[in-house]
């Protein structure tokens, strides 16, 4: 009785299991401002959902979770709309560009290889950097000394860019070009890797845009919301791969989870959040690396998925 049939996926699933998965990913989404596609899609594939349908239905679910999470963070004053919209414009441009890049890569052959290696290296680098940096920050805070704010080369460089403007919520002054260009960059990567890109976007906001961690989480969710609305409609329209029943059960779990996640996020300090996210990024990296190194159980696979 706890089973529901999924008409698009063509399989049945246990409601409680899917609800629980949704809840878990929703919590992560609310805490860290990531969509959680990296986690959800493989889990869905594991329980017998075809890869393309798992990925598309997951974006449908993320729409719900990020609506819920964005609202919760908005009420805490954690969403920088100006920054979010600029990143989004860049993201859409980058996504379109990324689709073309992947076509070229496919023609050259070895596309999968390049993508996976880039992914592992990037997650490894970003995760380790974030981990070490926030660990040091946590240690330094224990000793009550003020560190002189030196202007790094990077800060000097981005200070020279034209069209400087204030981002009030984030408390930074930057060139409009920065979020546009970085948004494009993340958009390209996300399109190539077939993921939402929250995992790359969050570190980009923290380290390259110098935004405070809590604002990063809220703004990232705001941005993810629009990306996934677009993906859901496009996938439904051109590939018929969104299973609404699956998305709905996931949604009920994840929208609830996102609310709790946002509350947990509020209780954590910026550096604690960073170190947790860094650990999560590293776990994903290790998982991907193991997938590459361990001999697969079956030497053939279905098309699609991450």
């Amino acid at each position, binding site marked *: 009785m706890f*089973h529901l*049939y999924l008409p698009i996926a063509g399989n049945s699933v246990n409601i409680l299991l899917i609800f629980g998965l949704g809840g878990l990913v929703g919590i992560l989404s609310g805490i860290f401002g990531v969509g959680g596609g990296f986690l959800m899609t493989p889990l869905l594939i594991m329980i017998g959902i075809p890869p393309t349908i798992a990925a598309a239905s997951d974006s449908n679910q993320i729409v719900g979770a990020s609506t819920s999470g964005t609202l919760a963070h908005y009420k805490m004053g954690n969403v920088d709309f100006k920054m979010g919209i600029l990143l989004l414009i860049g993201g859409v441009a980058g996504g379109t560009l990324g689709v073309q890049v992947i076509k070229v890569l496919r023609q050259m052959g*070895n596309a999968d290889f390049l993508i996976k290696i880039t992914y592992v290296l990037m997650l490894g680098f970003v995760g380790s950097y974030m981990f070490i940096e926030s660990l040091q920050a946590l240690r330094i805070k224990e000793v009550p000394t003020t560190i002189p704010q030196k202007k790094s080369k990077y800060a000097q460089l981005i200070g020279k860019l034209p069209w400087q403007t204030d981002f009030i919520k984030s408390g930074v002054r930057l060139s409009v070009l920065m979020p546009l260009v970085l948004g494009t960059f993340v958009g390209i990567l996300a399109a190539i890797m077939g993921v939402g890109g929250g995992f790359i976007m969050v570190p980009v906001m923290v380290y390259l845009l110098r935004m405070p961690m809590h604002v990063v989480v809220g703004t990232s969710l705001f941005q993810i919301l629009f990306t996934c609305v677009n993906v859901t409609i496009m996938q439904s329209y051109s590939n*018929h791969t969104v299973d609404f029943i699956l998305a709905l059960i996931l949604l009920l779990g994840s*929208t609830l989870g*996102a609310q709790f996640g946002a509350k947990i996020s509020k209780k954590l300090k910026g550096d604690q959040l960073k170190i947790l996210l860094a650990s999560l990024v590293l776990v994903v990296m290790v998982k991907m690396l193991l997938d590459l190194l*361990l001999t697969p159980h079956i030497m*053939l696979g*279905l098309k699609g998925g991450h």
Partner: protein
Amino acid sequence: MIRNRIWIPIIILVASFMWHPQPAGSTESVTTKHEPNLIAIGAFFNGTQLTVSGKVAAENEVVVIVKGKQEELTLKKKGKALGLLWMNLGSVHFKNVPNLYLLYSSKGIMELAASESKTWEQLGIGFESLKKQIEIEAPQAERNDLIQEFLKLKQSQKLYASHPGEISFGQKTDTEKSFNAAVWIPPQIPLGEYQVQVMEIHNGIIVGNSMDQLKVKEQGIPFMISSLAFNHSLLYGFLAVLIAVAAGLVMDFFFGTGKGGGAH
């Protein structure tokens, strides 16, 4: 030279008719029935049981095969890049593969398969015969491995299954006995039409054969959702987004107010 080559298949064809162990005319129709004839997939469908039953001669064995339509399939092939990293390297195209293949047989058949493998092969039953029938565009050296992996994949998807010895016999008279096969139809079954084939086997020869149809279709909520998704896909996409946003708003309304309200 060319003329000789044309003759070869004709000779083989004629010979095969002459040497066929059992002339086609002598197989009789087996009296069988299966229930249900139509599998309707509703909202709570989680696989179902198909009962195939009937009567055969007292000393004979029975094989039941539920088989789907032949299709073509392209799958990704995994391989090692740089001799170290496993990933998808190219794709393989499979032809002539049934989308479902469920095999049930009575115990005596297993003994036949074990002791007289040649006779067993001639019957054209089971995964071994499927292997011969499947066509792939791949070098001969890789063929066997690829087909083996293909069967593994289909079995992991529950769409191919072999249940030797799982047909039970009931009432037995001097001449007849009844058989019963409980065929498990997995929830992964694609919509469409299937053949339920029952074969009566005597000393490695098919003496009786019956073929029947089984239909699988959606009804109720799954049917409505599928029709919307395929016939009005843009509307479906917008609705999916709207409902997701609404779910987010409702959850925020019930669980999000109070604590976080308006504060910076």
